[in-house]
C-alpha cells in the first residue's frame, strides 16, 4: 500500500477512534450538565432538545437551599481524603517492609491479602457494623475510613510492592554510604521515585471511598455525617423526582473530580507503568 495512504488511514483511524471514545465518555457528562440547566418543562418531553434557550441555575439553587448538599460534599472529601492518607501510610510501610527485608511469609502476604476481595461486601457489612458498634465507631467518619482503607489496602499493597521491587536498592545504599541515615535515604531517594505509584494508590483509594454506597448507608445514620452517594440517593427517592436538581447534584460531584483527575493523570499513568514493569 502507498505509504502516504497508509499513514493517512492510520491517522484517520486514530482520530476517529479518539472522537468515538470522547463522545461515548463525554456525552453523558454533557447531557447531565445540560439537563441541570434546562427549565423543567424541557426536561420531561417526548423529544429531547440538545440545547436550551432558557438556561438557568435554578436547579443548583434548589440543591443548595433545600438539601444539606454542602455538608455531604465536605463529608465525602473528608472521608475520602482521610482514607487515602491512611492507606498510603500503611501501604507504603508494608510494601517497603516486604521488599526490603527478608522474613518468612513475605512472598505470599500481598497475594493472600488479595483473597479478601473474594468476600462479597454485602455479607461483610452487617458483622462489620456490629464490630464498629462495639468499638464505638458506628455512625462516625473514622469507622467509614477504616472500612475503606481495609478494602483498598490489598490492591494498594500489591501495586506498591511490585513498584518498590523495581526501585533498585542500590539507590538507598548509595545515599547511606554518602552519610544519610536509613529514614533519610528513604525520604530523599525512594519516596520521590515512588511518588507516581503513591498517586496511583491514592486515586484508587479515593475512588473507593468517594463512590461507596453500601457501607456508608449502613454505618452512617446522622444526616450531618452523610456522604454524597447517600445524599444523591435520598434526593432520587424523594417524593418528587426533581431531575434538574438530581443532574445538578451529579455535575457538582463529578466536575471537581474530573478536574483533579485531569491534572494528575500524567503521574497516575506513569506510576502504574513503573509499578507494572515486573507485572
Amino acid at each position, binding site marked *: 500500500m502507498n505509504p502516504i495512504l497508509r499513514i493517512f488511514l492510520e491517522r484517520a483511524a486514530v482520530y476517529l477512534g479518539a472522537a468515538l471514545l470522547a463522545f461515548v465518555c463525554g456525552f453523558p457528562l454533557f447531557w447531565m450538565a445540560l439537563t441541570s440547566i434546562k427549565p423543567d418543562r424541557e426536561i420531561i418531553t*417526548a423529544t429531547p432538545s440538545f440545547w436550551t434557550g432558557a438556561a438557568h441555575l435554578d436547579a443548583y439553587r434548589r440543591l443548595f437551599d433545600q438539601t444539606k448538599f454542602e455538608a455531604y460534599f465536605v463529608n465525602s472529601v473528608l472521608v475520602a481524603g482521610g482514607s487515602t492518607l491512611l492507606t498510603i501510610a500503611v501501604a507504603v510501610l508494608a510494601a517497603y517492609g516486604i521488599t526490603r527485608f527478608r522474613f518468612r511469609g513475605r512472598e505470599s502476604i500481598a497475594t493472600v491479602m488479595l483473597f479478601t476481595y473474594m468476600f462479597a461486601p454485602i455479607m461483610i457489612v452487617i458483622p462489620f457494623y456490629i464490630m464498629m458498634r462495639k468499638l*464505638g465507631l458506628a455512625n462516625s467518619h473514622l469507622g467509614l475510613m477504616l472500612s475503606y482503607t481495609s478494602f483498598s489496602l490489598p490492591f494498594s499493597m500489591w501495586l506498591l510492592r511490585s513498584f518498590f521491587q523495581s526501585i533498585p536498592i542500590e539507590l538507598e545504599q548509595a545515599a547511606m554510604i554518602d552519610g544519610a541515615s536509613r529514614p533519610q535515604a528513604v525520604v530523599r531517594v525512594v519516596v520521590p521515585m515512588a511518588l507516581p505509584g503513591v498517586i496511583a494508590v491514592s486515586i484508587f483509594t479515593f475512588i473507593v471511598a468517594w463512590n461507596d454506597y*453500601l457501607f456508608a*448507608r449502613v454505618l452512617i445514620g446522622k444526616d450531618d455525617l452523610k456522604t454524597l452517594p447517600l445524599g444523591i*440517593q435520598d434526593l432520587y427517592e*424523594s*417524593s418528587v423526582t*426533581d431531575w434538574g436538581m438530581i443532574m445538578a447534584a451529579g455535575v457538582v460531584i463529578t466536575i471537581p473530580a474530573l478536574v483533579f483527575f485531569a491534572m494528575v493523570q500524567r503521574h497516575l499513568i506513569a506510576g502504574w507503568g513503573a509499578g507494572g514493569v515486573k507485572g
Partner: protein
Amino acid sequence: MTKHSAFARALRAGAAAVALAVFAAAPAMAQKVVNVWHTEPNPRTKAVIDGIIADFEKENPGVKVVQEALAWGDLDKKMQAALASGAFPEVAHGQAYNERSLSAKGLLRPMNDVIASIGEQDIFPVVRKLNYNEKEKTYYGLAHAVGVDLTIYRKDMMREAGLDPEKAPATWREWIDQLKKLTDKSKGRYGLSLAGPGFFINEDIYMWVGSNGGRLFDEKGRPTFTEKPVIETLEFWKELADCCLAPDWLSRGYLDTFGDLATGKAAMIVGWGRGTDYFEQYAPDAVAKGDIGVFKTKPVGPSAGGKPFLTQFDSEAWMIFKNSKHPEEGAAFLKFFHRADNYLKYIQSVPVHFFPVTQSLRTDPRYLATPAFQKWKFWVDAQHEVIEKYEPKPVMITEWKDLDFPFIAELANSTILVDMVTEVTRGQRTPVEAARRAQQRAEQLITQLGYRKW
C-alpha cells in the same frame, strides 16, 4: 530512629487518640438521644420535623432527637444492621406487616399511652382496626398518616378515545375494554402504566386478588396462591401486559408512572396523592385545565361475588422499640408530635397524600384551608369517601386476620409473589404453574422460619 523511641512515640500517640475520643464522646453521653427513623426523605417534611424537634427539645431539655429519613429500600438494611447489633432506634416507621412481625417477636413497646393522649375515639375506626392488636388487646403502632390508592387518569385522553371521563369502570372486563381503546402502540401510548419494583407488584396483586373475592392465606396461615381468584388475577394481569402496558413496564419506577401520565404516555395509573406535586411541576397545562382526575371506585374481578373492591391503605406505622435506650422519651416525642398544631404541619408537608388519622384534624378549618386543596380537593374527598365506605387494607392484607401472621414481612420481601407475576406476564409459565411454584416456595419459607401451623 531506634525501635524504643518509635515504640514510645506510638504509645503516646495512641493514648492521646483514645483520650481525645473519650473527651469528644463525653458531652454526647450527658444527653438522652432519641433516634427517629422515618421514610419521608423529601426536604419539606424533613424541615417540618426539624421544627417539631426543635420545639420538643425546648420543652424537654436534656433530650436530643435525631431524625433519619430513609428510602424504603434502605430501611431494610439499616433495620437489620440495627437489630443485629442491638442498636435499636427509639422510634421508627414500618409497614403494618413489619409492625406485626416485630411485635410478635416482642420487640415493640405498647403505645396505648400515646393513643390515649391523642384520644382513641378521635382516630378513624378503620385506622383503629388496623393498628389494634386483637390478640393482645394492645396498640403496638399508629399509622403516621393514611392515604388511599386510587386510579388516576387523564380526562382529555379519555375524551379523545370516545370514553366518558366521569364513568369509572365497574369490572375488570370494562376496564380492559377502556384501556384497549386508550392504547395506541404505534404512537407509544398505553392505557395503563404500572410500577415494576417488587414492592408495587405486591401491592397490585393483593389489591386485585382482594377485589376478586379472593384471599392470600387461609385461617392457619397457609398460602392460598393456587385458589381460583388468584389464578384469575394472574390471567387478568397477563391480558393487561399484552394489550395495554408498555413493554418495559417492569423497569418503571413508581414516580416514572406519574411521569408517564404527565407526558401522556399513559392514560391511567394507580397511585396516591403524592403525585400532585409532580403533576404541577411537569404537566402544569393538564392540571390547569382540570384534566387530571381520580376514580372513587376501582373495578372488581369476575369472582368478586358482590363484594366491593379492595384498595390499599398507605399507612406506615410509628413503632417504639422496647429495647432502645430511651423508649419513654421516644413515646413522649410521639405524643408531642401528635399535638394538633404539630401534626397539622406534618400533614401539610405532603398535603394530598397525607390524610390525617384523626377525625378532628380532618374537619379542622386550618387543615381545610391548606392551599393545595384549592386544586386538589376532589382527590382528598375521594380518599375520604373510600376510607369511610370501603375499608381499605394495608399492603399484603386481604383479610384483617392476616395481620396476626408473623411472617408477612418476610414473604413480602422475598420476591416470591413478584416472581410469580413476572413469570406469568412474560409468558415463562402459565398462571397455574407459576402459582403452584409460588405456593411451594412460600410454604417452604414459612416452614424454614418456623411459623408453619398447618
